[in-house]
């Protein structure tokens, strides 16, 4: 078996090596000429650094240097078409004739534009396609915006930069990844995160691993260690729908593709960066001053990075490394966040027909974690909702709190007991991608991709013995390991058929296969007798568990792109997808798609008088089908088979019912209709993108409750229909363009209407929440609609505990978007800001529910002073509420005991909160130091100052409504419930970037 593998792979590996080695010599060296020139900004005359100049239909190209100069050497004599490109500018092409032994000059002056029609998009089409030909909307984030952003990881980079996509952070703890959603919730199964590729290789995008249990809902995420930095060339985002047909299953949530830099020909350019700053906690929602002053700290931040890029005509490279460390926003540096990262991108041109791109990345992160919400031993919980540090409660317990000093001493000594918890995580994540492009003829292009993503996450929570009253005195240790491996194998081919008159035709076909393996081990030990231990060996009670999951998904696709007169484009395709997600037998599904794009402004009949105002209009419409297999569900991947569980009981193992099984289970299928237009106004100064989208998911997965008489609880079924529709509108405007001052504004708004359109014969049921306020699947309501109990008084008008159940809340925002501006003064100073908003949704304030529970405590007289939480005279006397008086005021008297009635359950409507929020995400100032100041010794210096999460403009007062982190088990987080957590910190960053 081994020898067979070796025999197969040796020629392949050898072949690649030979290609690389020989490639450099592939071009003749004697009778050649060269082209050189300068690329400048047509409006200002300034040279453009890093502009791309390439030869059409060839792999050859280069980028401009610090002076805007480029050189293309060793070209055989002949005529070439050169294209100059730069982000934010209109591409320009020129024909150049090369003469042997001579150097031809060709300069380019390119004009800025807000329109990106010439941009090449890879995602959704399989091969690079001009944006003007795309039949669906696609968003791209370019390296400029990436370089200017302080975002640590991909999910934070997406915030506010992709119209129509939301990436909300459930908490500010390190290791947390955002919940990424596009166009609503299509199924209640698994996460809404889109599929993520790096250089064509699929990445781990999961979160909510087993580590969350016992921590009150704090989860770590694979998104948090998908670091972004100087190694990223661009990010393309497709929000689901027709374009994701080529990505098959799981494409319904959208696709994000990251492309890394591979360098370009030129002398080696070194760059070094140093960033320092501080993380300041956001405490506007903190209830208790003691927590505000003692739980939080402002932590220092430092980051060091460096890189080099360059290359020859045959081989170019881009190497980056960075180290970053934040001390975190919790006292004692308990929430540190540290990352080490090295990445390399290489491109070897074997010939003008073939090239190989390799990217490799290694990330190691180490971060601290903490118990939040209502986890046992959570200081937040005890102090913020149990009134444990209130003076009256401490007095009831017998502590001397007669003076402020005594009160502080008692509180400090109790608080210290909560700090003994050690909670740490570490992630090791290497990935490697290999792209081999081979174009034997100009019209036939092949791309082979192979790659691996490996992620190992280790977490450890430890409570030493004798920790005081906060934790179990006997100590506890929990460890979890999660190992994730994903192998991608992909082939894409494109064949440009000969033109038939005005009709051009391109066939795209390919194959993708992914194999995913996940292994999680968790173990816990409790009852340690001796101090100083950190191993399970020394525990008296050891429990362990494991979870294994393997899945293979593969598919073929075929797509035809027809262009008529290079103005009207029709795109039709089909994908055949299979997966082992349900069991050993691979189930197959067919996903078709069709779309049309019409650049109507390029037609002759387009009125010229309109052109100065509306410079170009593209209309587009597309329909496609994508599916979803249950690949990310927590425990139960094999859902067709009936399965039993084993439960320990008194030292024996007993059989219990687990999964009823459903042989009819199949993928959930989403059909998307996208209709939209891309318009550019005022001579490409303003670009407007408008979409209407309608996504209908049929057979979406729900955990449908079973008949109790069967002994089972729930079973995954394909039930009913979910509708998501709305509009997306985004505008980018270069408002002012002058040599000294540039201002561009951007904004986007998306509306979403999410509805369970059909229950498919199943009764409405609960998907999350609590017994007193569940989130429900109900007909004609949004997924996860919140059902609350509204008090109903008796006939005499007195309320005695009766209530009506009412659907009253929508957890998904109905309107959301982003806004921002970029301002450049004197070409050297840039100021930008960006913010996001989310409106039209509600949530349950579970934190308040905890206070409602805990206002109902006991009270006694201590030295004649009422102490405790609630004090009443014996024999039906009046009740005095000693803590949380504003909540107590809402309570109702219990007519039996003349005390307050437990109101959380019958009046859970009091927990429904308007969740609308508006936040400024980032304000940045960048200054490019004029080169005259350091007399050209260095390539360039840029100074930057950034604040991330500076201001919350609008938000509920009691709780951070962006968090909404509480989930049901390990399934989808529908949102709609927020508890006590640590919000995202205000991050100050000051940096220097030096190009050597």
């Amino acid at each position, binding site marked *: 078996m081994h020898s067979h593998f070796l025999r197969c792979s040796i*020629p392949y590996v050898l072949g690649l090596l030979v290609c690389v080695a020989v490639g450099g010599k592939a071009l003749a060296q004697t009778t050649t000429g060269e082209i050189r020139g300068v690329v400048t900004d047509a409006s200002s005359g300034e040279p453009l650094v890093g502009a791309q100049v390439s030869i059409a239909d060839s792999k050859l190209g280069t980028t401009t240097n610090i002076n805007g100069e480029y050189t293309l050497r060793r070209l055989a004599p002949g005529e070439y078409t050169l294209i100059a490109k730069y982000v934010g500018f209109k591409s320009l092409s020129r024909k150049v004739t090369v003469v042997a032994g001579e150097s031809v000059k060709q300069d380019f002056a390119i004009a800025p534009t807000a329109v990106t029609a010439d941009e090449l998009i890879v995602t959704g089409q399989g091969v690079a396609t001009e944006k003007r030909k795309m039949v669906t909307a696609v968003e791209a984030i370019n390296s400029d915006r990436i370089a200017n952003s302080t975002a640590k990881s991909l999910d934070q980079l997406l915030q506010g930069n992709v119209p129509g996509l939301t990436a909300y952070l459930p908490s500010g703890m390190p290791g947390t990844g955002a919940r990424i959603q596009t166009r609503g919730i299509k199924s209640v199964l698994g996460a809404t995160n889109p599929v993520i590729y790096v250089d064509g290789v699929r990445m781990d995008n999961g979160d909510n691993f087993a580590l969350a249990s016992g921590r009150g809902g704090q989860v770590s995420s694979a998104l948090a260690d998908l670091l972004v930095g100087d190694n990223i060339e661009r990010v393309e985002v497709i929000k689901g729908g027709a374009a994701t047909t080529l990505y098959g299953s799981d494409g319904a949530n959208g696709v994000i593709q990251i492309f890394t830099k591979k360098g370009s020909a030129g002398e080696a350019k070194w760059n070094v960066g140093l960033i320092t700053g501080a993380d300041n906690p956001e405490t506007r929602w903190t209830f208790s001053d003691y927590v505000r002053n003692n739980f939080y700290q402002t932590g220092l931040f430092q980051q060091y990075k460096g890189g080099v890029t360059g290359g020859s005509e045959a081989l170019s490279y881009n190497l980056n490394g960075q180290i970053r460390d934040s001390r975190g926003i919790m006292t004692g540096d308990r929430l540190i966040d540290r990352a080490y990262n090295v990445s390399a991108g290489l491109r070897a041109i074997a010939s003008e027909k073939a090239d190989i791109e390799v990217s490799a990345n290694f990330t190691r992160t180490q971060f601290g974690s903490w118990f939040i919400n209502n986890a046992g031993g959570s200081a937040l919980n005890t102090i913020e909702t149990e009134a444990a540090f209130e003076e009256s409660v401490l007095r009831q317990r017998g502590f001397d709190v007669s003076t402020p000093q005594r009160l502080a001493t008692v509180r400090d000594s109790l608080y210290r007991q909560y700090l003994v918890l050690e909670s740490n995580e570490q992630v090791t994540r290497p990935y490697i991608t290999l792209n081999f492009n081979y174009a034997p003829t100009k019209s036939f292009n092949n791309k082979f991709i192979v790659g691996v993503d490996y992620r190992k996450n280790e977490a450890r929570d430890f409570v030493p013995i004798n920790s005081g009253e906060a934790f179990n005195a006997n100590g506890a240790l929990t460890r979890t390991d999660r190992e994730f491996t994903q192998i991608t*194998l992909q082939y894409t081919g494109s064949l440009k058929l000969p033109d038939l008159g005005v009709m051009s035709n391109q066939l795209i076909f390919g194959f993708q296969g992914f194999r995913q393996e996940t292994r999680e081990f968790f173990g816990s030990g409790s009852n340690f007798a001796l101090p100083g231990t950190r191993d399970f060996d020394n525990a008296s009670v050891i429990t362990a568990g494991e979870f294994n999951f393997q899945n*293979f998904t593969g598919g073929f696709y075929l797509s035809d792109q027809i262009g008529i007169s290079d103005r009207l484009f029709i795109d039709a395709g089909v994908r055949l997808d299979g997966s*082992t997600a349900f069991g050993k037998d691979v189930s197959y599904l067919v996903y078709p798609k069709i779309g049309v794009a019409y650049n109507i402004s390029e037609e002759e009949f387009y009125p010229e008088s309109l052109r100065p105002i509306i410079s170009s209009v593209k209309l587009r419409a597309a329909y496609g089908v994508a599916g979803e297999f249950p690949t990310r569900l927590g425990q139960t991947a094999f859902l067709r088979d009936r399965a*039993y*569980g084993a439960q320990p009981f008194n030292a024996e193992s007993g059989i219990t019912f*687990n999964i009823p099984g459903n042989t009819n289970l199949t993928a959930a299928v989403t059909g998307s209709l996208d209709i939209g237009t891309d318009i550019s106004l005022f001579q490409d100064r303003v670009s407007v993108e408008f979409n209407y989208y309608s996504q209908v998911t049929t057979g979406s997965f729900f955990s449908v409750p079973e008949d*109790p008489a069967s002994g089972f609880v729930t079973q995954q079924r394909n039930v009913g229909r979910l509708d998501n529709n709305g509009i997306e509108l985004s505008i980018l405007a270069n408002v002012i363009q002058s040599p000294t001052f540039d201002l561009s504004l951007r904004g986007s708004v998306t509306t979403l209407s999410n509805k369970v359109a059909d229950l498919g014969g199943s009764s409405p049921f609960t998907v999350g929440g609590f017994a007193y306020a569940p989130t429900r699947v109900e007909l004609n309501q949004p997924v996860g609609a919140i059902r609350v109990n509204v008090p109903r008084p008796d006939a005499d008008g007195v309320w005695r505990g009766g209530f009506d159940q009412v659907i009253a809340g929508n957890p998904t925002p109905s309107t959301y978007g982003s806004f921002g501006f970029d301002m450049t003064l004197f070409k050297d100073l840039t100021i930008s800001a960006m913010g996001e908003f989310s409106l039209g949704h509600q949530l349950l304030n579970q934190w308040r529910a905890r206070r409602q529970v805990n206002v109902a405590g006991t009270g006694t007289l201590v030295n004649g002073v009422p102490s405790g939480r609630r004090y009443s005279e014996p024999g039906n006397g009046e009740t005095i509420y000693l803590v949380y008086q504003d909540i107590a005021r809402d309570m109702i008297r219990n007519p039996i005991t003349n005390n307050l009635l437990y109101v959380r359950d019958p009046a859970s409507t009091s927990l429904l909160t308007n969740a609308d929020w508006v936040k400024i995400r980032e304000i940045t100032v960048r200054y490019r130091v004029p080169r005259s100041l350091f007399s050209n010794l260095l390539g360039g210096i840029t100074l930057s100052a950034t604040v991330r999460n500076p201001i919350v403009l609008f938000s509920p007062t009691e709780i951070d409504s962006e968090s909404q982190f509480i989930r049901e088990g390990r399934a989808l987080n529908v949102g709609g419930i927020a508890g006590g957590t640590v919000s995202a910190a205000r991050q100050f960053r000051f940096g220097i970037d030096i190009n050597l």
Partner: protein
Amino acid sequence: MQTAMVFTENHQRNVKEKVEMPSKFLKNVLLGTLCVFTLLLTTVLQGCRGLLDPTPVQNDQVTDDNLRANAQGGARPLLTGLRLTFSRATGSLLTVTELVSDNYTNVTSFVSQLLDTPRDITGTDLTLSLNSGIYVRTQELHALADFGLQTILPNDPTTTNLQRAETWFYKGFALLLLSENFSRFPIADKGQPISAAAARDTAISAFNTALALAGTNPPTDPLYGNVRSNCLLALARAYRLQGNKTLAAQFAEQALAFNPSYVFFARYDPQNLNSEISQHVRIRTDNNFQPLPRLDFLDPKLVSVPGSDPISMLKTEEAHLVLAEIALSNNDLATAKTRMGQAVTLARSRPTVQFTDVAPNENRPSYPIGASAAAASVRVRASPTAPEDTGLIRRRGVGSSAFTLPTVSGTSRTVAGINALPNDRRVLARELYLLRQEIFFLEGRRMSDLGIRLPVVERQTQGNPNMPFGSEGTLVSVPEWIPTGIAAMNQFTIAGSVITIQFDMNQVIADNIARVSPFSGW
């Protein structure tokens, strides 16, 4: 260069490249690489078994296939599964039924407050409809027993009759619990609902089957009891519900003859059964269950922290009480008194512990009285017209000392007291049900004795089209003799050191005995 020219002619017109082509060797290497890559792909695509097939995946769950393939020894995990499911079922039984009855009031806790007012209980009740609630757990027990009887046991060649007997016993007991607490329900997945009486009769035949299989003298398991005793007591209980005096008496006598002081416990595993709602009864931390003051001396019965005491589910006191009830229904007052006296004697002989209740978290109106040194002198009247009883309130709270607490059975009555009662059938009926209330305290019996039947949970009405909401069994059934008003059965007033309970439910039962007792002849 010939090869090169051929190559260039195929290029498009505007790029006349005369670049020197790579040598033939390199071209072949490239083509070879392409071939190898295609080979790799095709083997993957064809799913060719062996090295390059990416599709094999493994289901780590226990499936039907696994059970069939490894059937030997399957009886043992089945029994363990039945025992643990039984413990779960009984745990939730306690929390709900004790609150619904007059035994306990829910003062302020996470458990549904509507349980104190039975007529307000619906299938969507927060505590009732939990997946760990009584209805779901009892159905689970029954389904597991059926699964064992139909699938596991027949395939396991090492199964013994004793194991079969125990499985039948649990099947019967699940049906018995369902029939005592619910009025109509299905007992098969999507099956037709049957009446409680029909379920009870099925339970009886299950017990009889178990009895036959267990043999005349089966061994006693130190934790899980003796199957024969269990069946005998269960049959006495079930035949009582059927109103069958002959058979109820017969099995009661047999149970006493076989083992006169037997108790069958539902065991608890603190490590593995700690997410059940029975915690609220077992672990008295943040919840507040107020017992009826007249029963204060029996509270809390399950004393250990973190709550690993077993619950007695069947005991021979019941045999005495069944025989007493039969005698009473036959107007044989002397035998009734004797039998009740025997029940009292047995109850008083059961284990006790010395218990100190100093936790200040108990929020009960009687607590202020109970907290004082004068607790011993507090008197309780069972109703506004009843005489004052002493010795029923125990001193609790800071400064209190240990008192004797029964953990299996306890009663305030004495043999002499019973013998001194007038020969009035109604008075004796009250006494009988008072004894049942005290002896079966915190065992989930009182609600059924009162005649209240719970509705099935929301998931049952939604999961089975044969049982739509509104049909019989889906609504709570509260007899007319249960007083109306919020938590009426739990109402009491305190004046000085006298606690007066508003309704003496045992008297109410005695006044309606012909409709409450399953036996005829009243």
